[in-house]
């Protein structure tokens, strides 16, 4: 054999040097990836894990205050493909087609997609349990049977703006789904591919198996029944007045719990894409800003009472206008209200009277109260898209601006700000924070994990002042402009509002109003504040006519549902040609039909059954009904009652 020439040894040495250099290059490269970029890759890998549906936790449900489900997930076994892992694409497609039925070619398209994971759309979605079991048993590489979960809103459009909606990966995009996305989505887990497919744990404890933590259930302050009452009334108003929009808020004034909130037009959260984005992006009760109109007078009244600038029995003369710095500000009533007490100023919503109250308070005090009642800043409600509104800056507020502000013009506020301010005016002066989250519930045990702690930010007026405000507003409903909100026995107090809308050029739009009403009940111990605003109703354009009855209906039905007892000592409603008096039903039980017919009852009577003696009646004796309501009589032959 040949000996080794020197050139061979030289070249071997060169190769060895190169080998060492290459090794160091590799170590260098790896140290760059692991040490310099490691943090970044670790973060990216985390995100990667969270992208996969099978690693995602079950999203928490949204419940109403009584635990009724308003948003939950429907899940069904579906086929998830990982094309990169499927080597034998044609064979896999064939086997899938055999089990699932369907077109082999179409399935092959999905199998061959250049994506890390693909849902097998069509035949691979919502497959029967039996087929899912067969597929799981086949253990095809890159084919995973997993739960395809979809957010479901069983009540359709109900509370849509508040709930919001989720995107394709069940991530919150709007409303509560967005605000509380983190808690609702829970924590993703790391599950191995195979163990997930069989649903078994790894046999070796060294293998990491972190199960995803399901999201918490969100229990709202919302009362589904109150919400449905609101939805019903708003739908009816949309049909009746054909306005641009309507909105309503119902809140517990004592702690800021939102009992119901809605606006129309609305959308279906599960099909939000089919609706104009302007509709689903704007949660009107917290987003819309406009001149409040007369409902704002409550603030002026509360401030004047608290500062002892007025006595409600004091008299005032309204000539139909008031001159402020040479400007003539008219009362809404032509010719004015003439001679009246300040209580009547409130009942009549008399503008010159409120200008007087504003004057007595002075610019600074008035502005101070407006700020303290929370206008010009967000209420802090746990929903997205809240607006702040606009107030006059103190330096730009002249006598005219002060006067118009006193009766609710020239300021711009949101509905939720008004609800919060009026709540404070009637609840003893407490500025509560409106909120919809009541508590977080463990989805498995049902235990409360965390409850909302009601906050009182400040106290703006005393209980004594608050009481006066409640009583004067109750008389607005009983005797004044808010008559149509009257609910017998519930001592409704409230205030109408009619505000002209400001057009794009800054001027008022002709014949285009937002009419509103804010009401609360019962006046002795308010349990609910309801605000309704109708934007540009066709035909009649007065808050007292359009919005007040809606508020009345909502308050009446809601309080009945909430089990609030009726009061006896209400301010009796004033009789006017426009109102229907409330009367007590007579006790007709035991009387003979002939005698009743001959008496002077002006109730229409309906009879059920045969006989001549009344054995029962609906409504029961002594119940208060609107005059003209019919009474149903159940007849029989009563002989045991001796006559």
């Amino acid at each position, binding site marked *: 054999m*040949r000996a080794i020439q020197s050139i061979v040894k030289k070249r071997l040495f060169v*190769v060895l040097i190169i080998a060492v250099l290459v090794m160091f290059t590799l170590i260098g490269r790896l140290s760059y990836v692991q040490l310099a970029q*490691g943090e970044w*890759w670790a973060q990216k890998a985390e995100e990667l894990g969270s992208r996969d549906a099978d690693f995602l936790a079950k999203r928490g449900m949204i419940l109403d205050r009584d635990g009724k489900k308003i948003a939950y997930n429907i899940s069904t076994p579906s086929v998830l493909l990982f094309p990169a892992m499927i080597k034998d694409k044609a064979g896999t497609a064939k086997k899938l087609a055999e089990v699932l039925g369907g077109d082999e070619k179409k399935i092959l398209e999905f199998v061959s997609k250049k994506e890390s994971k693909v849902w097998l759309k069509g035949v691979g979605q919502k497959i029967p349990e039996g087929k899912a079991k067969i597929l799981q048993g086949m253990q095809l590489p890159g084919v995973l049977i997993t739960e395809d979960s979809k957010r479901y809103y069983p009540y359709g459009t109900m509370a849509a703006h508040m709930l919001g909606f989720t995107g394709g990966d069940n991530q919150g995009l709007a409303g509560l789904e967005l605000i509380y996305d983190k808690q609702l989505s829970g924590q993703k887990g790391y599950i191995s591919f195979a163990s997930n497919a069989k649903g078994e744990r790894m046999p070796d404890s060294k293998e990491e198996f972190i199960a995803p933590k399901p999201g918490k259930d969100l229990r709202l302050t919302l009362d589904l029944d109150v919400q449905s009452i609101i939805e019903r009334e708003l739908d009816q108003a949309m049909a009746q007045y054909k306005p641009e929009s309507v909105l309503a808020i119902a809140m517990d004034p004592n702690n800021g719990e939102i009992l119901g909130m809605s606006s129309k037009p609305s959308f279906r959260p599960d099909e939000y894409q089919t609706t104009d984005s302007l509709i689903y992006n704007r949660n009107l009760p917290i987003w819309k800003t406009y001149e409040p109109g007369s409902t704002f007078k409550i603030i002026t009244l509360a401030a004047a009472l608290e500062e002892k600038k007025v006595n409600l029995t004091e008299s005032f003369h309204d000539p139909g206008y008031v001159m402020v710095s040479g400007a003539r500000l008219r009362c809404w009533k032509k010719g004015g209200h003439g001679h009246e007490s300040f209580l009547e100023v409130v009942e009549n919503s008399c503008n010159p009277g409120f200008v007087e109250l504003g004057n007595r308070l002075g610019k600074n005090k008035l502005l101070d109260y407006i700020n303290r009642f929370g206008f010009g800043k967000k209420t802090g409600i746990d929903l997205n898209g809240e607006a702040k509104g606009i107030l006059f800056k103190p330096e730009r507020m002249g006598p005219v601006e002060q006067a118009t502000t006193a009766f609710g013009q020239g300021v711009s506020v949101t509905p939720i700000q008004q609800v919060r301010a009026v709540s404070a005016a009637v609840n003893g002066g407490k500025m509560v924070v409106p909120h919809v989250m009541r508590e977080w519930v463990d989805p498995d045990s049902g235990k409360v994990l965390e409850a909302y702690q009601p906050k009182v930010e400040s106290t703006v007026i005393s209980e004594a002042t608050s009481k006066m405000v409640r009583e004067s507003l109750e008389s607005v409903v009983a005797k004044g402009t808010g008559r149509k909100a009257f609910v017998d026995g519930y001592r409704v107090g409230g205030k109408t509002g009619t505000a002209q809308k400001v057009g794009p050029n800054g001027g008022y739009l002709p014949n285009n109003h937002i009419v509103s009403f804010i009401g609360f009940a019962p006046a002795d111990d308010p349990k609910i504040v309801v605000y309704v605003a109708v934007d540009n109703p066709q035909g009649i354009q007065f808050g007292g006519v359009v919005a007040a009855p809606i508020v009345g209906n909502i308050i009446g039905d809601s309080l009945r549902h909430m089990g609030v007892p009726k009061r006896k000592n209400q301010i009796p409603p004033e009789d006017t040609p426009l109102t229907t008096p409330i009367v007590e039903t007579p006790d007709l039980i035991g009387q003979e039909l002939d005698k009743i017919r001959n008496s002077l009852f002006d109730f229409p009577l309906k009879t059920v059954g045969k006989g001549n003696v009344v054995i029962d009646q609906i409504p029961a004796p002594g119940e208060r009904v609107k005059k003209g309501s019919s009474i149903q009589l159940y007849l029989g032959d009563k002989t045991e009652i001796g006559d």
Partner: protein
Amino acid sequence: MQKTKKSPDFVIVVAILLLLTIGVMMVYSASASMAFHKYGDSFYFAKRQLLFAALGVFFMFLVTNVDRKKLYDMAKPAVIICFILLVIVLIPGVGIWRNGARSWLGIGAFSIQPSEFTKLAMIFFLAKLFSQPTFQIGRFRKGFLPAMGILGGAFGLIMCQPDLGTGTVLVGTGILLIFVAGAKMKHLGGFALLGVAGFTGLVLEATYRIKRITSFFDPWSDPQGTGYQLIQSLYAIGPGRLLGLGFGMSRQKHLYLPEPHTDFIFSILSEELGFLGITIVITLFGVLIWRGYRTAIRAQDLFSCLVATGITSMLMIQVVINIGVVSGTFPVTGITLPFLSYGGSSLTLTLVAVGILLNLSRNTNR
């Protein structure tokens, strides 16, 4: 030539045994969950890896005692048999189609890859050729060209399967041998130009190869498609950082990284044992390569020297390409990592090659 034999290079033996131990452990960690659900046994792959490693080590020590004369004599028939097998494997119905290439012969577990054997046979053949007293590698037509011709022929057949990974290792090993044997630099330079042109042609001919190249330069341009493996591999390596996530704690081996126990075992190792772990493994490979070339330099005859060079170079090229690929340094191509990747017959064969290296280490100067 026959002097008193020394014992084989102890350092190589230790490095190999350490690498095999780490390998079996990593194969277990990388494949356990998949093995459990596919075969109901988390140790399915680990047990087989251990079996083939033991078998390989047995053969390795067996080969250590073989007379080198026999190796010299069988070089020519071995390469002829390999060429025949490389042709047979291409016949549809005879060669078994796996992972997009027709490169297997045999039935089930008893199947072999002729290309694996060819790598080894080629080393012997070229070493024998270059140590013929009349052969002049420095001459072009009677030296360089025939050597390149036989190498090119084998490469061509392997590329018909097609198996770019094995082909690259074969050509790389052969060219290093030709270089070490003393070929003229102008010949090698000219060939390098030709090689670049040919490689470009091969790449352009198959679109998947273009995509592998482009995805290498910008994996994020198509993260779900061709860049997938590279990105998934980096997702494993990066988070490992200095100390790793801990043995068995890899996340990428579940579902994300294809073939975690074969081509991408180094990624899992990086993820679980961190930079510290891979430094140890690369150092072991480094020691192996250093001792391999040391054996070559100290060999007593040209044939032994070139065989040692060839085997060491073959191992080095595979290590460098595999680690280069998984760390995003080279474009993706399927090559296993010697001693660590799962792979029955090829592991045994690699250990036999090391056995020959050990054999040669017994007959060195000093």
